[in-house]
């Protein structure tokens, strides 16, 4: 899967209720072969995927997006600016959903490149579904 070599977490820290991940993009990711040829730009969904991966690490089990009430893409992220990316994640206590869906978490997250906010997201995550 694309996320496996898309980025690395260089440092994890915390401020108040939030987890902070300093991350670095891998410019050799297969994603850039197709997005776009000769003009690598990080797809918005891959930035969302990084947030989900960091949130999964915060919780300690794989999570999946269920809802996004709002996600704004404010500046383009590209592998040319692969360092100095900081992901901020705030997860609230598990919401008890029905048994089929498992545990759910509310998330507020952002991605910054240096001081520039590139993305802000508010939504809900659930434990990743298993094989049918």
């Amino acid at each position, binding site marked *: *899967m694309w996320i496996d070599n898309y980025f690395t977490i260089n440092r994890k820290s915390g401020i108040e209720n939030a987890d902070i991940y300093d991350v670095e993009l891998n410019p050799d990711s297969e994603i850039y072969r*197709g997005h776009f040829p000769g003009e690598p730009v990080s797809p918005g*969904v891959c930035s*969302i995927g990084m947030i989900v991966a960091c949130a999964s690490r915060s919780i300690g089990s794989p999570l999946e997006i269920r809802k*996004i009430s709002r996600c704004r893409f404010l500046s383009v992220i590209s592998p040319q600016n692969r360092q100095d990316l900081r992901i901020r994640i705030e997860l609230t206590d598990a919401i008890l959903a029905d048994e089929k869906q498992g545990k759910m978490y509310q998330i507020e997250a952002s991605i910054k490149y240096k001081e520039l906010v590139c993305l802000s997201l508010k*939504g809900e995550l659930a434990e990743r579904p298993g094989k049918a």
Partner: protein
Amino acid sequence: MRAILLREEQIKSLICQREPVILIDTFFKPADPEYYTGLKILPGNIFCREGIFSAEGVIEHMAQSSAAMLGYLAAGRNEQVKTSYIGEIRDFELVDNPRTGDFLETIIEILSEVMDVILVRAESYVVSEPVVSEAVVSKPIASCKMKLVIN
């Protein structure tokens, strides 16, 4: 049943994405303001893990469906197909993840168009084979509103 206009390789005439990121394989005959696309989820898809197609894959499929619509409209005006980016996602909901072997079908509806910013509504359905008529009678597995910015 809706007629298929473009398939697989031909889709590249509508969008700027290339393998392995392409997440649509069918473009149906539109009924403006609605446009219809499809994707057969194959095991090698890079947005799949253990046979489950991720939410990120569904969102990207919706974005590329919108991009294909914009490409189709540009081609109709004899203009070049331009890249577009997601500016904003609102009210995205995924009821269930598609799985490998599923055919994902998506309806894109243009809600507004101001300069180079297009607001669409996207609804995705899992169907047994590419037929939009089946999709409209079942419940969507995912939906959202999306703002696209043309480069």
